[in-house]
């Protein structure tokens, strides 16, 4: 009888109470654990990403100030597009959804390769915008601050039908950065601070030199990277000038009345294509070093480019106007654009090396900190590019600008630097 009553009590009261307790206990436990996350500053977000310091890359906690959504990565600094296409002349794509986890101290940690790359890209574009503001670059570019458009997982179909990879570029056509899939075993371009800053400089050069120059700017080949073919391979229409249109435009610029004059005008355009694209590439390498402090950033992602190093000395002299004219004439006769590209990077490396060397000398002989010297150099470069653009626009149709002129202009801006502006005789 007693046992029956006992069972009745158990069944009617104790079991439901215990069942409720059993559900409440883990709830209390996990709510308690969840409450361990503390936001020291709700306006900022801390992320753990690959970051360069003290000569190497390591995982570091980096603070982001402008990010609004940690899944779609919406924020003031960048706008990401996955697998981009075009509509109405605009680059379009889907928003990414990244995967992160949050530690007890509130740090976001990416959970996969893509998320790590995108978070790192966002962080660099935010820091690059800060650097632009610190240097005063923002005052010379309309619509500042700019939200950078970054297209990732760009599927470039090459003429062979294979999907392209292992490249990063800026296109003025769409004012966007394109990151192709990285398949090498080195540091991915999208986490390489120097490479990202290199591409960022191309956007600055486009805004301050190429765009204001309009149709006077020679050939689209001289435009940043040879993106026209890549854009077409991606199925994206080329909005601005095509190569053939540029050639025609450049012909009409010169007072050409006969075939000889036309050829001369084309050689002159080819000459300036060498100077301007080499300058763009060389200064972009310098900008990559200025931002990251890494003077060997290209090789970190593409080890085969053993000469794309700021301390690499190609020659003790610079090509003279006469030598470059000969090279331009030879290129104009040849249909091999690979030679043009190779020469452009070679000449660009000479620009970069001379500026790097000048800063090293200043640091060694005057005890100036390299960080300070790099930032002053950046300001000097930016002002000099603006002046060189005005000289280029004002130049006569028969005039050939001296390839060392940009270095002379930077020297004028920064008298304390001793830049080697020697030209071969």
């Amino acid at each position: 009888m007693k046992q029956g009553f006992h069972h009745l009590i158990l069944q009617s009261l104790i079991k439901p109470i215990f069942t409720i307790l059993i559900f409440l206990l883990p709830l209390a436990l996990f709510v308690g654990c969840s409450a361990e996350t503390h936001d020291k500053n709700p306006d900022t977000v801390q992320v753990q990403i690959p970051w360069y310091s003290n000569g190497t890359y390591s995982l570091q906690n980096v603070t982001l100030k402008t990010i609004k959504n940690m899944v779609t990565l919406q924020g003031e600094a960048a706008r990401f597009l996955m697998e981009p296409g075009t509509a109405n002349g605009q680059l379009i794509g889907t928003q990414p959804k990244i995967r992160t986890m949050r530690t007890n101290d509130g740090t976001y940690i990416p959970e996969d390769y893509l998320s790590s790359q995108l978070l790192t890209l966002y962080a660099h574009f935010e820091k690059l915008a800060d650097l632009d503001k610190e240097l005063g670059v923002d005052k010379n570019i309309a619509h500042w601050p700019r939200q950078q458009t970054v297209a990732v997982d760009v599927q470039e179909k090459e003429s062979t039908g294979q999907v392209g990879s292992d490249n990063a570029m800026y296109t003025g056509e769409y004012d966007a950065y394109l990151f192709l899939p990285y398949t090498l075993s080195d540091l991915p371009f999208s986490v390489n601070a120097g490479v990202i800053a290199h591409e960022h400089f191309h956007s600055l050069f486009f805004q301050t030199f190429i765009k204001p120059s309009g149709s006077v700017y020679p050939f689209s080949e001289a435009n940043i990277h040879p993106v026209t073919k890549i854009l077409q391979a991606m199925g994206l229409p080329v909005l601005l000038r095509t190569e053939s249109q540029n050639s025609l435009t450049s012909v009409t610029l010169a007072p050409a009345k006969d075939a000889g004059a036309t050829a001369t005008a084309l050689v002159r355009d080819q000459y300036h294509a060498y100077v301007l694209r080499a300058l763009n590439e060389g200064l972009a390498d310098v900008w990559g070093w200025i931002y990251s402090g890494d003077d060997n950033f290209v090789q970190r992602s593409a080890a085969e480019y053993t000469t794309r190093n700021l301390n690499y000395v190609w020659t003790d002299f610079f090509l003279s106007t006469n030598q470059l004219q000969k090279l331009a004439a030879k290129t104009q006769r040849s249909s091999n654009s690979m030679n043009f590209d190779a020469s452009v990077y070679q000449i660009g490396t000479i620009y970069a090396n001379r500026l790097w060397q000048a800063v090293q000398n200043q640091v060694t002989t005057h005890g100036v900190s390299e960080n300070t010297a790099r930032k002053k150099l950046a300001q000097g470069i930016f002002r000099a590019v603006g002046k060189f653009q005005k000289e280029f626009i004002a130049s006569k149709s028969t005039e050939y600008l001296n390839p060392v002129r940009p270095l002379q202009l930077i020297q004028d801006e920064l008298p304390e630097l001793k830049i080697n502006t020697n030209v071969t005789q």
Partner: protein
Amino acid sequence: MNFLKVSSLFLLCSIFFSLQLVVSTADAEVLISGAAEERLEQGMDQSVAPQIYMDISCEYHWQSFLSGLEYFQSPAETTGQASLSLSRLRQGVWVTGAWQAGEWFIGAPYLRMGLGGYEESVTTTLLGLSSSASSRVYMTGFGGFGLRFNIAKSLFTAVEGRMIFGENLNPLPSMSFMARLGWEFNVF
């Protein structure tokens, strides 16, 4: 999982089973089962794809009611290339409660709910150096429907569909389907 969390879970399990044994009656049974669970989750390629989880559960079965603990763990998902790779693992515990209808001709249908928490751990390898970190504990819960079949005297199998809610899940809710194999026995 760190020491504090393991200790907390151990304490929770001890309380749970102590309470169950206190109120045990002769008609109560214990179920131990393992399950393969297919959860639909967003992957790195942005698409929603199945992830196979392993589940182990221990339940107390009394009349039409079941309550128990269930541990789940995802496979390690590794992405990246030679110089940068990330490996991610998710594991957690649910306290579950279920109501089971009587034996129908197709089996015994049941409704199950669960409440618990999970954590994620990521090991990032950059240029040969690895670093591991764990997340805070995220709240999670689910509601589901299943069908149980007795295949031998103490052996049973079950299929179950779940709708999972919780923090840091994508998509939300996440759907899951599982196949379970278990052993039911009377502790007295």
